[in-house]
């Protein structure tokens, strides 16, 4: 089938491209937009390493087609922070929330969605939020510590939101 034109906002920048319908959003982000921070682990929805934010919601980019995102606002890991680490990334760094780093971009997308809606999550809520993200290095306790610490940083930075 012919390629279809899409125009979307990725990390604050408008991007337009011609895509074949079968192109997965994950491949579009990595290969067409040259943003390789979004990782692809399983390509069938199980591991969560490809999670990105589409219109503020964490979704599996390996389970959407790029054509579906026409007009959408997408945030990938490259859009976190502004050249510097944002508070969630800083917390992951300080709390050793990553080892090899493969799962980290997806973990951060899930964590960001959680903290956008819940400034003071319980450990139970943090566990639930990352239940769809596999870490093969199994550093889950550190990841939970990192998200808890990120929540505290964000609350301290913006007491009105807490």
């Amino acid at each position, binding site marked *: *089938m012919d390629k279809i034109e899409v125009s979307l906002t990725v990390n604050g920048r408008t991007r337009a491209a011609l895509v074949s319908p079968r192109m*997965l959003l994950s491949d579009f982000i990595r290969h067409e937009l040259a943003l390789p921070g979004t990782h692809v682990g399983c*390509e*069938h929805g199980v591991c969560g390493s490809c999670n990105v934010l589409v219109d503020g919601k964490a979704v599996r980019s390996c*389970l959407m087609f790029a*054509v579906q995102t026409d007009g959408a606002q997408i945030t990938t890991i490259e859009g976190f922070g502004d050249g510097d680490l944002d508070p969630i990334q800083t917390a992951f760094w300080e709390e050793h929330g990553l080892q090899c780093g493969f799962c980290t971009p997806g973990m951060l997308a899930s964590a960001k969605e959680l903290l956008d809606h819940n400034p003071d999550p319980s450990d139970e809520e943090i566990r639930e939020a990352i*239940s769809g993200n596999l870490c093969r290095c199994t550093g889950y306790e550190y990841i939970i510590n990192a998200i808890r610490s990120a929540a505290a940083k964000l609350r301290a930075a913006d007491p009105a939101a807490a």
Partner: protein
Amino acid sequence: MKPAKFEYSRPDDLPTVLALLADQEDARILAGGQSLVPMMNFRIAQPAALIDINRVPGLDYIRMEGDVIAIGALARHADIQRSPVIQSNIPIMTEAYDWVAHSAVRNRGTLCGNLCHADPASEMPALMQLLEAQMVVASHTGQREVPAADFFTGTYETALEPDEMLTEVRIAKPAAGTGWRFEEVSMRKGDFAWAACAAMLRLEAGQIAMPRVAVAGVGDAPMRLDAVEAILTGQAPSEDLFQTAAQTGADAIDPPETPAASAAYRKDLVRTLLPRVLSTAAERAE
């Protein structure tokens, strides 16, 4: 792996969806894509055409219509799970949603897509049988209603014809005083059920009235356990009664054998879960 080629269309009204479904050879609806796209990535599914319904306005409703809760084809798992209409009218559905997938999957996946996919280990098909939901099915020639009991015909099989779409699910609000409970065991929370049990019942003068019991993960399709319901009817709740019901339930099923969970283990799970859901349902009944 990558999906094979397909024709893509993204209609913005329902009549066009239904016309395309009738006209195109081997066309499938693309709803949340959370079951269809994994199958396409594996090339287990290679539809010639996808009809993306995500931009059809007005299909994402969850609303009361008299005593019936109507849920549209684009209502997503995440919205149903958090819906106050569902929480206050069908609390067992909110409870069961705790077991359905993970948040990123629930953000996209739809109830109707989930029911059409008809995985035998999926929670909502069993719950729809428990709640005796009506499936509103449309094609370019008209509309019909199919009771949940007739909708799920086998593993990944439903009563839908190739040119039909599930447009709405209608659930009658359970009677006041109904007690309920949904429990499941799976490998990890959010995975498909090794065994799930759901129960609803009422108490009339201390005796169980209109019990309903459904199971998932333990057969070709989700099902009601008629034999268990018969044993419970008219009896006073007791541990003995629930143990008898559990044995009857385990005898009535023919669960699949998988490397992760043997058939015998799944029967054990049903024997364990049934008394639990029944006693909680009886405690919650008024």
